[in-house]
């Protein structure tokens, strides 16, 4: 049984609004071939498990991983798929290696949002009898959550817009993403309202892309790389499905997932001990809510923290220096991209978006509307 698990390789495709030139297997293989090349590992000799994250309804194919069986090395071998955010691939890969069953796991997430319609796809996430007939999608559900969160803690649209301005400016340092730029508060607040209080610029745009990472037992990891990124802690938790069962201004599932991950990583004071956070800002307000769920500050305090520059690129705790999901990262791929970005920061290989010396980083991913399922991964250099 392995006592520790490490990320030994990271690769991502460029994320773009539309990749009409490739099917999703070819897209996935761009990331897979890169990560194998960079680590010098081969599917036959080294990889003994594969875990992928994708959604049947996004891919338009039941058991959506059958489309990537060949490229991930799943032919007559072990491969499993989660219809969840990509962060859960890291969670399950970690468990598999810790159990002693597997030594080296290839984790993948892919999605081509451009091939269908996000509003229709996300409407099918709602229960067909009780809530689907309203036509609800993730944006309208998020708007209900944003409104509830903002009114409870007296948070203004200006404060939410600061997240947009920060992340899109951070994204100018990130060559892999497509939605970036230096915007003023007025520009952000002039963005058309889609579902009040959510504006177009508050929404992570449609994107196509894939991320692949390789994880290994301690023994294997030390043979593969001199810069292993250790999985220090993992946690995952589900909240209720029905919006009406949940207090949308709170994120109990994230609190629980974070507590599990911090306990495992022996983190007692997350705000002081964590050097960097990459989280799933599918909508801008979520960056604030998730920071509270991650225990970086108290409930309702993340807006002030953000406006004071605490989470800025050169702040005390940089949050989404990559630009986050607002910069254009596909759904499902989102959380694996968070883990990949956190790992690159720890390795000191984040290029222009490197924030300095990162010893402990937290990556957060979520699945379902309003962050129903939450997954937290703590990564560290030692």
């Amino acid at each position, binding site marked *: 049984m392995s006592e520790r698990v490490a990320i030994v390789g990271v690769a991502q495709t460029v994320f773009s609004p539309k990749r009409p030139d490739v099917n999703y297997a070819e897209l996935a293989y761009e990331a897979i071939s890169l990560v194998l090349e960079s680590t010098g590992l081969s599917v036959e000799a080294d990889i003994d498990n594969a875990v992928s994250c994708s959604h049947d309804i996004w891919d338009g194919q039941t058991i959506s991983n059958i489309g990537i069986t060949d490229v991930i090395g799943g032919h007559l071998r072990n491969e499993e798929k989660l219809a969840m955010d990509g962060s859960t691939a890291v969670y399950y890969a970690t468990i598999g290696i810790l159990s002693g069953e597997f030594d080296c796991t290839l984790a993948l997430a892919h999605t081509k949002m451009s091939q269908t319609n996000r509003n*229709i*796809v996300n409407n099918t996430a709602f229960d067909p009898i009780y809530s689907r007939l309203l036509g609800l999608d993730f944006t309208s559900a998020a708007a209900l959550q944003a409104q509830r969160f903002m009114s409870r803690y007296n948070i203004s649209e200006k404060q939410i817009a600061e997240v947009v301005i920060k992340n899109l400016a951070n994204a100018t340092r990130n060559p892999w993403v497509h939605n970036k730029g230096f915007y003023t508060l007025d520009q952000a607040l002039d963005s058309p309202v889609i579902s009040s209080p959510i504006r177009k610029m508050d929404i992570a745009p449609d994107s196509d892309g894939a991320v692949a990472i390789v994880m290994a037992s301690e023994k294997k990891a030390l043979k593969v790389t001199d810069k292993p990124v250790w999985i220090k802690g993992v946690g995952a938790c589900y909240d209720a499905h029905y919006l009406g069962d949940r207090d949308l201004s709170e994120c109990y599932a994230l609190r629980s997932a974070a507590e599990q991950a911090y306990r495992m990583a022996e983190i007692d004071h997350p705000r002081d001990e964590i050097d960097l956070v990459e989280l799933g800002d599918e909508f801008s307000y979520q960056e604030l809510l998730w920071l509270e769920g991650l225990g970086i500050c108290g409930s309702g305090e993340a807006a002030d923290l953000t406006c004071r520059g605490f989470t800025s690129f050169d702040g005390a705790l940089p949050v989404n220096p990559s630009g986050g999901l607002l910069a254009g990262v596909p759904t499902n791929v989102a959380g694996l991209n968070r883990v990949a970005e956190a790992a690159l920061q720890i390795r000191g290989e984040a290029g222009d978006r490197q924030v300095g010396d990162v010893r402990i980083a937290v990556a957060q991913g979520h699945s379902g509307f309003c962050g129903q399922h939450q997954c937290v991964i703590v990564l560290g250099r030692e």
Partner: protein
Amino acid sequence: MKSAKDNVELISIPMVVDVPYRFAAGKYMTRFLTELRDNGKFYGIRCPLCNRVQLPPRIVCAVCHVKNSDWIELGNEGTLVGFTIMYLPLTDPTTGKPHEPPFAYGSVRLDGSDSVIDHFLNVEPVVEHIRIGMRMKVALKEREDRVGDLGDILHFDPVT
């Protein structure tokens, strides 16, 4: 007289889950479909290690996990390796219309290919007229009617 149990009303909600897609054929299938549409030819892709000629053409050889690279022109005749006679009116997803039963699906290994291709068989759909090992020939739509999808193949005819 009805019992109370028989009078329980059960509600169910009819709904069509209608999700539109546009699937990119990708680099490999785009070349296959272009050759089929423009020149009426079948191309498979050969693994540089194990030499398997695969249909449909795809980026990676699943067995060897290497990138496929060699395009191989295949014959438009092959051998029937399996078939079924259908009595269910299965729906064509591109038209929404059913295929009229009875009809036959067959699996044909085109000459030069290691994979088989599945399509309709243009034979009387009775077991006595179809046998494993039959030689079959591809029938395509006329050039001007071909659009670049698998529907450009009409069916397989028996080689007489």
